[in-house]
């Protein structure tokens, strides 16, 4: 199976391990990822107002590039990119006015022909978690992992259509395919503070603290994420764990692809 692939800025630098493990595991699973040419930053955030249409030009250009690669689907990984692309694509499909405005700036019209998918969706729907489980060489048995979804994969509810907003299960199903145990805790979809860690650190720190402590108390030894910013925040404020885990309390934060790479032994 061949896919267009949009890595995004963070995966080329701070989250290199996310990209590396993705490409290694994809290869092991027989998937071919063809990187979109000349892609630019997607803008990181979907504009939440009626006036900033033109910040969608960058993601639409990337989608348009992906369309030229002639693959049905474009895979993304970073939850921020996924959120921007999924929503941009939906808007291009459904909002005629926006479509007209944006296409005025493109050489060839883009009408939402490409499907935007997350790598996890590829694993779940195209390969199937059962088939993934069959390829696992080193079962992650006994590993108690807290799935942490964050916000961007799931919300807004009627635009992302990724999983149940309140009780998602795709991370859990993925973990059980790898043989690991998913820990149940109430903060798995609670926001980590997102960009507040850039300018309102104390707010992000408190938000992160609640997630870390709750996961720790539920017996998790690591947290699984799909978003570089979630990972940064959860790692940055580990001292919040001291209350419950003692002075040297630590909780590792791993991309789901890192766990997959480990289980597939690549």
């Amino acid at each position, binding site marked *: 199976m061949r896919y267009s692939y949009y890595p*995004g*800025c*963070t995966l080329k*630098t*701070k*989250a290199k391990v996310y990209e590396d493990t993705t490409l290694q595991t994809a290869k092991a699973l027989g998937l071919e990822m063809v990187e979109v040419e000349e892609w630019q*930053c997607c*803008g*990181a*955030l979907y504009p*939440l*107002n*009626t*006036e900033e249409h033109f*910040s969608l030009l960058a993601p639409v250009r990337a989608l348009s590039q992906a369309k030229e690669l002639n693959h049905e689907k474009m895979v993304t990984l*970073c939850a*921020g*990119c996924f959120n921007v692309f999924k929503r941009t694509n939906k808007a291009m499909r459904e909002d005629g006015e926006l479509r007209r405005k944006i296409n005025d700036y493109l050489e060839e019209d883009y009408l939402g022909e490409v499907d935007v998918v997350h790598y996890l969706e590829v694993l779940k729907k195209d390969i199937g978690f059962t088939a993934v489980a069959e390829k696992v060489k080193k079962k992650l048995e006994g590993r108690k992992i807290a799935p942490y979804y964050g*916000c961007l994969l*799931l*919300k*807004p*509810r009627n635009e992302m259509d990724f999983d149940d*907003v309140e009780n998602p299960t795709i991370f859990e199903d993925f973990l059980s395919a790898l043989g690991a145990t998913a820990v149940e805790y109430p903060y798995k*979809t*609670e*926001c980590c*503070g*997102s*960009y*507040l*860690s*850039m*300018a*309102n*650190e*104390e*707010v*992000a720190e*408190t*938000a992160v603290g609640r997630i870390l402590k709750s996961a720790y108390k539920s017996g998790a030894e690591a947290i699984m994420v799909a*978003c*570089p*910013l979630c*990972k*940064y925040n959860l790692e*940055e404020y580990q001292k919040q764990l001291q209350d419950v885990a003692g002075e040297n309390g630590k909780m590792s934060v791993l991309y789901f692809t890192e766990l997959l790479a480990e289980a597939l032994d690549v």
Partner: protein
Amino acid sequence: MKITTEKINSNLVRDVEEVSGQKVSACFQCGKCTGGCPVVWAMDIFPHQVLRYAQMGLIDELLHSKTLWICASCQTCDSRCPREVDIPKVIEALRLIIMREKGGNYLHPNDLPARVRENAPQQGLVSAFRKYAK
């Protein structure tokens, strides 16, 4: 703080509705947004109050609120709102009103601690500057 006909009828309410694409009058003040907001404890005006202030034309008061810079746009509130009001969009509209004024930026690159500047992922930096500066 006083509610007057002038305030309720002010153009500012219409500006907010236009920029956000949201009808603030749709809110019936159930508070579900506030109850679920993960960072509400750091806000001075709660999300449901943002809508109430907007309905009552208390836009000036909103423009001076900490809340605008605390909201992380996580969209937990709008995913539960029974009236289909996208509150992060309303808050973004208010932020834009401020930032479009000269000197309205909330964040300058120099404000970032060196630790953050070095370690933070691009995703976080780009997000922050898109939210906090024009």
